[in-house]
């Protein structure tokens, strides 16, 4: 075991740090990195785009992608080293999760050469914001039950239906669109995966106000939307396996948020030390200590699990279903941590912080946002099924829709 960089890794880290120092301001001691953003400020989006473009221009973007598609042809270790270094600087929040984190890997796995050349380099340069058009009002966790239909018309598909919970669809240039192209076969077999230009006529993305007060996820209405067949990823009827690639990448990119937990715990300790009751600072309360420790143990467990995965990958072993752990644990941990922070303040825990940029984290916003981490990208229950069935090899839940054509599947409506 050796947690130090290898000589090559150390050289790479030094180069990355030197480049970052020439480009951006470092975070001040104790300063929190950019919080989760709901991207309601156009300037913030432009800063995010500009930072991505700058990284791509200098060769610090999309490390594992081939050079011909705008990447660096590098390793996942380089990617994590750069991310670690980047986290020490004052960089804008990242608006490219659905693009670079999900669309990119899906295109690399399932796209034709022409499709990769068409989208990937621009994606790496931050020219496109992407969104995911998967969920629907009647489907939810049963994603393959979606009803948005696409009918072939010459070289085009004509799409009609409604999508839901599509983050950033109101800002996006492109969408990852899963549609039903054949209702007369089983529900998984009748799906096709399309890439849709979000400026196409017939697309109406309406922001939905969330519990945080922000409005960056959307319901998206698709009415007679024409999508060229050249934008199809994978086979007609083969959309489910393409979607699984997207979902796997979604979970691992969302789970990476667990690394922020340790920082939150430091802030929580500071809060407990600075807040007093009649017996003294709350940090002296055993129940408080135990609750803080529970958060810290989980957050570090997630980080060290990612180190194990990284080590395995550097030895050529692909990551397994255990990567689902990160999102499951980190989501719940964040919710517990935020709730504890509000508890520590008694009734002031119900007062919205007027200055979230002060020396504490915006706990109230964090608490309201936390459920998203337990729902988006697969609920806790979905993830437990995945772990149970793929990591432990337990038998699947029997399904009454098995062997039925989609059209014949009973529904509640």
């Amino acid at each position: 075991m050796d947690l130090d960089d290898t000589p090559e890794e150390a050289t790479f880290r030094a180069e990355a740090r030197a480049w970052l120092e020439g480009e951006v301001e470092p975070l001040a001691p104790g300063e929190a990195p950019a919080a989760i953003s709901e991207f309601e400020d156009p300037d913030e989006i432009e800063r995010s785009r500009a930072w991505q473009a700058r990284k791509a221009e200098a060769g610090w973007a999309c490390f594992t992608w081939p050079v011909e598609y705008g990447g660096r042809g590098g390793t996942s270790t380089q990617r994590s080293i750069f991310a670690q270094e980047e986290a020490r600087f004052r960089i804008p929040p990242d608006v490219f999760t659905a693009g670079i984190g999900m669309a990119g890997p899906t295109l690399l796995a399932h796209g034709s050469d022409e499709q990769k050349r068409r989208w990937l380099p621009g994606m790496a340069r931050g020219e496109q914001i992407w969104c995911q058009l998967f969920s629907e009002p009647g489907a939810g966790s049963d994603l393959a039950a979606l009803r948005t239909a696409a009918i072939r018309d010459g070289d085009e598909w004509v799409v009609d239906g409604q999508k839901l919970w599509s983050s950033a669809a109101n800002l996006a240039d492109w969408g990852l669109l899963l549609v039903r192209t054949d209702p007369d076969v089983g529900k998984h077999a009748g799906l096709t995966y399309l890439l849709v230009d979000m400026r196409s006529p017939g697309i109406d993305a309406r922001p939905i106000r969330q519990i945080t007060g922000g409005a960056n996820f959307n319901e998206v209405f698709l009415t007679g939307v024409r999508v060229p067949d050249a934008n199809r990823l994978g086979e007609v009827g083969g959309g489910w396996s393409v979607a699984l690639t997207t979902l796997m990448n979604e979970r691992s990119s969302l789970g990476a948020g667990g690394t922020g937990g340790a920082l939150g715990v430091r802030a929580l300790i500071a809060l407990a030390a600075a807040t007093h009751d009649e017996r003294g600072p709350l940090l002296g309360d055993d129940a408080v200590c135990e609750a803080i420790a529970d958060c810290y143990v989980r957050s570090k467990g997630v980080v060290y699990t990612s180190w194990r995965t990284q080590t395995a990958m550097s030895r050529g072993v692909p990551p397994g279903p255990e990567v689902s752990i990160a999102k499951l644990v980190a989501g719940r941990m964040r919710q517990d941590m935020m709730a504890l922070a509000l508890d520590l303040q008694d009734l002031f825990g119900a007062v919205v912080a007027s200055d979230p940029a002060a020396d504490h984290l915006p706990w109230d916003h964090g608490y309201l946002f936390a459920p998203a981490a337990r729902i988006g990208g697969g609920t806790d229950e979905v993830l437990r099924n995945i772990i149970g069935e793929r990591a432990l090899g337990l038998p699947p839940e029997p399904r009454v829709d098995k062997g039925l054509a989609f059209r014949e599947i009973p529904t509640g409506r």
Partner: protein
Amino acid sequence: MNFDFDDDHRELQRAARALLDDRCTLRDVRSVFEGPAPFDADLWDAGAAMGWMGLAVPEADGGLGLGYLELCLVAEELGRALAPIPLSSSVYLGIEALLLAGSPDQRARYLPRLAAGELIATLAVQERRDRVAGFDLQTRFEDGRLHGVKAPVPDGECAGLAVVVANGGSTLALVELDGEGVRREPLASLDPSRSLARLHFDGAAAEVLGADGDGRHLLDRLYDRAAVLFAFEQLGGAQRCLDLAVGYAKERYTFGRPIGSYQAVKHKLADVFVAVELARSNAYYGAWALSTGSDELAIAACLARISATEAFQAAAEEGLHVHGGIGFTWEHDAHLFLRRARLLAVELGAARRWKRTLVHRLAARP
């Protein structure tokens, strides 16, 4: 970065597992569990022949001079097998105490025999049920003599040497248990495959280990080291419980389908899997800190200890539950794991204490 064990470590682990598969089946564990002997002496000798006790002891002190990474993986296998031998007392606590604070003379006298498995050591801390570890200690060490009562002392029945916390915690005293002025009284153990005893000291000859007055500090450091090794034992036990429960959930049918296909059971086992994987990752970090002598050990030991304790307990409790009524019977092995999980959960102090320590150490960091 290389956050994993290497092939040569794994080779040693495989050898330990092969020996334990052969010599330490659950039937063997049960014969100690239900029999009069405090431990499995044949298994102890076989382990000694493999060099288990001396893995992390320098060659100059009669050990193999390998390291803690090797010892961690052997500990994991011992935990997996529920090995009924006093390795944790003798090696993680006894040998480590001597490595930490022993004088050259004390090391020369005891380490070669401990490393060879010819002598068994233990650590005696607590005294009374209503006084938790380290608090209000009455045992006195004065003028080379020890007076007091220690209980419960793990493996106190079979140990030949004890490190005794005395003088309110300020002194660690080293005492040979086969000498004059020592009386042993067996205590019924919740896990009879690991024995507990009460030790009475009535003017027994003893000597100071480390600097007098430094006892509490030494004990903290000793606990940090031992916590990582205990964590690997707990991890091995937890993984075995999970494996057994998953196997049963695939084979046992109810209402026409395997119980593992029900979400209530599947999600329970998924949660145990998550706890075990987090414990493994935290234990690895502890292994790294221990093996490199890093200052991070103060935090890493807490993480490893808390995570492994919770994982073994969850795996033992939920593993038994998945087996239903059969899991509640004396004949079934589930209670052997439940008992071991409980013993290990409190042997170095309960998780509650480690959580408090963790947060205070984090708060004291710059």
